[in-house]
């Protein structure tokens, strides 16, 4: 099934009206693929747009040799009629930011606003905070209220700054702590004076609230310089940080935190309107932060194509629910079907070779490997033993059906995790290529590329079982979808196996094979994603309880 002709004929069946457009195959993921192994931290945060301009730059970096290979890898790129309408989707315009960058841009905006207000930047910062960094609303209210706005925001309008600031040590009775001691004090122009310790306590408590801090007794606002003066050091940074955090919380439809642990990136979606188009087409808006974490902007979950957010949500909920029901302990070890030695799976590949008896078997179905390798990948197909019984869908049968899909889902999840482990060794392999046979770094990138393709394929495969579970099994398109799963499974397995090769010489010798297999996986992944989206769009696959 490697000939692309048969692929095309297969794909033709679910060609849609809107897939007519002649489009470039370069998916957004392609454009960033070459960055995968480079040090992300060193890349200056840039606008990660989904247009493919970046790819062009990368392509120019390839040598003549690579370019040739490149064409070998993606033969479909040349076809004028691309059947996958991936590109008919509006491209997502987004950028990856840090809180510091957001704050810097806020400061720039403050700078721009200065001629309008003719106030010190500190004061404008207070106004911006009060209006949740919403410039338009602020300007609107400003033209309406002028000085009243300043008073409302706790800014001093008298123009005098008498009495503002920290005052030298003196004998002072503080009404907050009721101590009468020799201490420094602080007050704003309002004259509400308290000891510096109480003020420190007070500010410390409020730095994380993300709101303007006022005098303890009236609504006069403390500016950043006051806070720094009282606390010492740059404590106002903390306040700005929490203010920006609350800003993000309030604008969660266009700003999202990267959900990965400890990742501090914020994705800002510039064009929220395109989201509607995405949900209409049952496509999810996947974004990648500058640390290389990809996730769905809609639900904050990992990449879950071909499933849409609803299917994902249902599936995950169901998995949580059924987990207790079934108590599925899908262990990491299995007994060799022939000699019963416990075997641990140490790579993503499902082609197992028992270390004791050399028996070759498939990890998923436990059957002999022989029928898997060359021919159709059978074990991705759920066999309805008796089609006549399908009408009488007993609860037990439903559970068994779910169990199968869930098992497939987790198997691919485990495989994907193991592939990541494999990924660590790929880095060494590229190094090995460089050191042992003098291959340049850029030339060695085909390994990293292949790994990325493999991962994308696995993820798509994994989530395709969620879509398949919710699909009407009698529909023709579902059958095509399952066929597609089989084809991708096959492609993924053979690529995964190829990536297990350790010897640098063999790797270089079989380089073309890497290209071809990765290219094939890429095409199969696209086909599966497209088919899955069709299922959802046509309502053949529907999330339900």
């Amino acid at each position, binding site marked *: 099934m490697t000939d692309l002709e048969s692929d095309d004929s297969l794909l033709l069946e679910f060609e849609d009206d809107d897939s007519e457009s002649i489009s470039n195959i370069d998916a957004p993921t392609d454009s960033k693929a070459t960055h995968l192994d480079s040090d992300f931290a060193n890349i200056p945060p840039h606008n990660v747009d989904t247009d493919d301009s970046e790819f062009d730059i990368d392509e120019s970096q390839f040598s003549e040799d690579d370019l040739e290979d490149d064409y070998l890898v993606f033969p479909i790129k040349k076809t004028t009629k691309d059947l996958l309408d991936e590109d008919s989707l509006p491209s997502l315009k987004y950028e990856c930011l840090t809180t510091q960058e957001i704050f810097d841009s806020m400061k720039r905006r403050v700078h721009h606003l200065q001629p309008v207000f003719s106030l010190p930047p500190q004061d404008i910062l207070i106004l911006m905070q009060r209006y949740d960094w919403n410039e338009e609303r602020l300007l609107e209210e400003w033209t309406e209220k002028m000085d009243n706005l300043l008073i409302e925001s706790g800014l001093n309008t008298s123009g005098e700054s008498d009495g503002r600031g920290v005052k030298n040590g003196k004998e002072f009775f503080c*009404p*907050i*702590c*009721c*101590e009468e001691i020799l201490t420094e004090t602080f007050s704003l122009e309002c004259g*509400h004076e*308290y000891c510096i310790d*109480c003020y420190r*306590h*007070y500010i410390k*408590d409020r730095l994380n*609230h993300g709101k303007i801090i006022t005098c*303890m*007794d009236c609504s006069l606002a403390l500016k950043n310089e006051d806070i720094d003066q009282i606390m010492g050091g740059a404590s106002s940074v903390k306040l700005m940080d929490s203010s920006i955090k609350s800003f993000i919380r309030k604008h969660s439809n266009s700003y999202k935190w990267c959900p990965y642990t400890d990742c501090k990136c914020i994705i800002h979606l510039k064009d929220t309107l395109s989201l509607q188009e995405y949900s209409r087409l049952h496509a999810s808006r996947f974004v990648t932060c500058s640390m290389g974490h990809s996730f769905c902007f809609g639900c904050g979950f990992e990449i879950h194509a071909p499933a849409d957010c609803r299917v994902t949500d249902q599936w995950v909920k169901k998995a949580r629910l059924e987990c207790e029901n079934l108590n599925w302990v899908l262990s990491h070890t299995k007994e060799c079907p022939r000699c019963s030695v416990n075997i641990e799976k140490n790579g993503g590949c499902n082609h197992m070779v028992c270390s004791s008896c050399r028996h070759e078997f498939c990890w998923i179905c436990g059957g002999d490997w022989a029928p898997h390798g060359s021919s159709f990948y059978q074990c991705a197909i759920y066999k309805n033993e008796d089609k006549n019984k399908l009408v009488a869908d007993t609860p037990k049968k439903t559970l068994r059906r779910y169990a199968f899909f869930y098992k497939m889902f987790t198997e691919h999840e485990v495989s994907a995790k193991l592939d990541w482990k494999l990924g660590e060794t790929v880095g060494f392999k590229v190094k090995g290529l460089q050191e042992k046979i003098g291959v340049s770094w850029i030339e060695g990138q085909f390994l990293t590329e292949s790994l990325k393709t493999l991962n994308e394929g696995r993820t798509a495969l994994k989530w395709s079982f969620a879509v398949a579970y919710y699909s009407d099994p009698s529909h023709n398109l579902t059958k095509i979808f399952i066929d597609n799963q089989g084809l991708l499974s096959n492609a993924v397995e053979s690529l995964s196996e190829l990536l297990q090769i350790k010897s640098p010489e063999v790797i270089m010798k079989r380089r073309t094979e890497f290209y071809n297999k990765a290219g094939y996986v890429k095409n199969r992944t696209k086909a599966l994603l497209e088919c899955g989206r069709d299922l959802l769009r046509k309502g053949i696959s529907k999330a339900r309880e």
Partner: protein
Amino acid sequence: MSRAKRLMKELQAVRDDPAANITLEFISESDIHRLKGSFLGPPETPYQGGRFIIDIEVPMEYPFKPPKMKFDTKVYHPNISSVTGAICLDILKNAWSPVITLKSALISLQALLQSPEPNDPQDAEVAQHYLRDKESFSKTAALWTRLYASSNGGSGAPVEKEVDEARLYGIDPNLVKEFESQGFDKVKIVEVLRRLGIKSLDPTDNATINRIVEELLK
């Protein structure tokens, strides 16, 4: 410890101002975290004539964190839970400032009794009652004040031993009798009417009657 000093000062300030008719005392000498405060129900409100006792818990971070306050005395008010006495008031939450004292917080509670905020309710049932029929609400609130907050008791113990359940929640006794005559249990009737927020009824309103019967039959 500045907190102890401040609390002593606050207590002294309350004692120095007997005209405010506010009390503030430690529950025990050994624990400065727990206090009891009390104030009079504001005049010309259903709470007039009652003394309301407030349970106060002072956190470690006081006065930078607000004290926890709740009503010990049962009170019928939209912003106070009729069951637990929990209070919904902004100065006891995010609007707290260290310059607010226990005395001024108690005065704010007094003001809360004077002017309820039914749109930000703590007790939904009471708030509904207030919004639908203010007169009936006032009668119930006054009844609760008489029962639980009358100053001669002072401890919050009810004066009248037996109170009619229906009257306690401002439900028209005739309405309860009506359903009782149909053979329903009185406790259940009151429970259903409270849940549906129905205090009195137009006898021709069949839709509502049917809904009540439906609930009663459940």
